[in-house]
């Protein structure tokens, strides 16, 4: 079952389309990366899924419900961390969480205490006196404390130090292990590659790819560097090898796809040394990010 499904979801601000015909499907229990450059429409999509905005066209179903019409009951099962988190500066951390828990019906209890301990947050201070990282921790605890079925996190690792980031990753992995779903927006490729099972890539308000990370890895290029022994020239490289630089004694290029043809060619060639790098998703993502003219978005 898809926890999030959108069908031709479109959002316009006057003449400008922030999101165009988005067909997104997030299966249950996934750690789903939502990737795209700034202004690609990620935050607009998340706001539509939360019922903060109404779609110009198309529709969305979150946990099988319409976020615009079924907002309150739906949001009881969603934990959300905004990209630009703003909190009640005059409340303390404890008062903030108590207010949010009270509105949710005081169900957090033990989970709230566990998360506060896990993220090592001092709740006695006023939020206004918190550092950015502490505010982000508070926002994460608020999003996680009611054990939601769907976590929507808009660039959650902003301002987090590596240790807290690792704690967050563990919490998110634990959530998906329990069958809960995480929709994780980011523009950091390495983060999504490390954490997510599946990714959707947005550019200029359009979905340009949705695929499992494992499949993308197969599509990603491997950088190949071959040194040849002196002697007769090697046979022509197989069609899958994009040659970047070729000399009589060496070759640099990029390989895409299964390795067998490449290995067969190397076996037949007078190879002195070879280096084949792991699949590089960075190049793949940058290719997705580039516009029709090849410029990076």
């Amino acid at each position, binding site marked *: 079952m898809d926890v999030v499904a959108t069908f031709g979801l479109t959002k316009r601000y006057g003449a400008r389309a922030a999101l165009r015909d988005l067909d997104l499907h997030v299966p249950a229990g996934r750690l789903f990366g939502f990737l795209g450059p700034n202004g690609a429409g990620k935050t607009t999509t998340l706001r539509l899924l939360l019922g903060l905005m109404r779609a110009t066209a198309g529709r969305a179903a979150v946990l099988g419900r319409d976020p615009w019409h079924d907002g309150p009951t739906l949001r009881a099962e969603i934990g959300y961390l905004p990209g630009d988190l703003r*909190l009640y500066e005059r409340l303390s951390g404890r008062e903030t969480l108590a207010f949010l828990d009270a509105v*949710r019906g005081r169900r957090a209890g033990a989970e709230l205490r566990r998360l506060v301990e896990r993220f090592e947050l001092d709740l006695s201070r006023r939020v206004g006196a918190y550092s950015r990282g502490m505010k982000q921790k508070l926002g994460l605890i608020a999003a996680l404390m009611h054990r939601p079925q769907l976590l929507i996190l808009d660039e959650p690792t902003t301002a987090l130090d590596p240790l807290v980031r690792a704690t967050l990753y563990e919490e998110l992995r634990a959530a998906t292990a329990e069958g809960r779903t995480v929709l994780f927006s980011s523009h950091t490729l390495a983060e999504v590659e490390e954490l997510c099972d599946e990714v959707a890539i947005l550019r200029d308000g359009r979905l340009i790819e949705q695929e499992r990370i494992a499949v993308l890895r197969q599509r990603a290029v491997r950088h190949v560097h071959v040194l040849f022994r002196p002697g007769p020239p090697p046979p022509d490289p197989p069609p899958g090898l994009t040659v970047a630089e070729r000399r009589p004694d060496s070759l640099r290029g990029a390989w895409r796809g299964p390795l067998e043809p490449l290995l067969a060619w190397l076996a037949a060639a007078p190879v002195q040394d070879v280096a084949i790098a792991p699949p590089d998703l960075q190049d793949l993502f940058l290719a997705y990010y580039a516009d029709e003219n090849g410029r990076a978005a």
Partner: protein
Amino acid sequence: MNLALFRKTLRDARWLLIGVPLGVLLFDVAAIRVLIEGARDLEFLRQWLERPLVQLLVRTALGADFAGELTPTVLVTFAFVHPLFLALLYTLLLAMTSNALAGEIGRGTADLLLTLPLSRSTVYVTTSLAWALVAAGAAWLPLPGLWLGEQIFQPASRLEYHRLWPVALNLMALTLGVGGVAMAISGAVSRRGLAIGIVLAGLLLSDIVHFVAQFWAAVRPLRVVGVMHYYRPLPTVRAATPPWGDMAVLLGVGLAAWLAGWWHFRRRDIPAA
């Protein structure tokens, strides 16, 4: 209605909820003192009040002339329309209404509030209940303030409270009416300053029309758009009964605006801060 949000709305305004009532009470205590001082030379006061410009101002503010009737209860009506008193009342009202929605959106905390399992209607109604309760209560504050002043200064003649409570009731309708409009504007815009600015500009314009209509016949038909046209303490004190018609207009306009604001707030996009 959500109790946690109701408490938070009141808590957000806690310093104003302490300061404004205190200010109103002190103002009314001072008003009794001024009344006692004025009564020392009633003839001078009578002559001063008969000056044309003063009469115009009295008519504008109180809705009628004193016409030589200078009893303490009649004179104290100025305390119900004094700019300082109205400024205190409007400060409390506008601070609460503008903070409830436009403030949340402008600060970005609406992303937190409106992604909780609360409908927008619940947010609108709950925050409205909080300011409406405060506004309704604040309108009655002059009565204990004046009573306190009497206890402190012991004037020779006492106020007739059975003539003053209808003014407080009329004032309550005024605060609820203005609050309804202010809430609708707060739900329609995304910046607190803008919400306050629109309401203040509207009130100022309405007061200018009301004032000009006192001496310019061509503008007189427009006085019905003036808020103060429906809040006239002097005729109310004389009649000693609430001005039900004026109150119905104030409450009707406030309710209509509030309902329109509710309708709009439920449908609008909430932009990122």
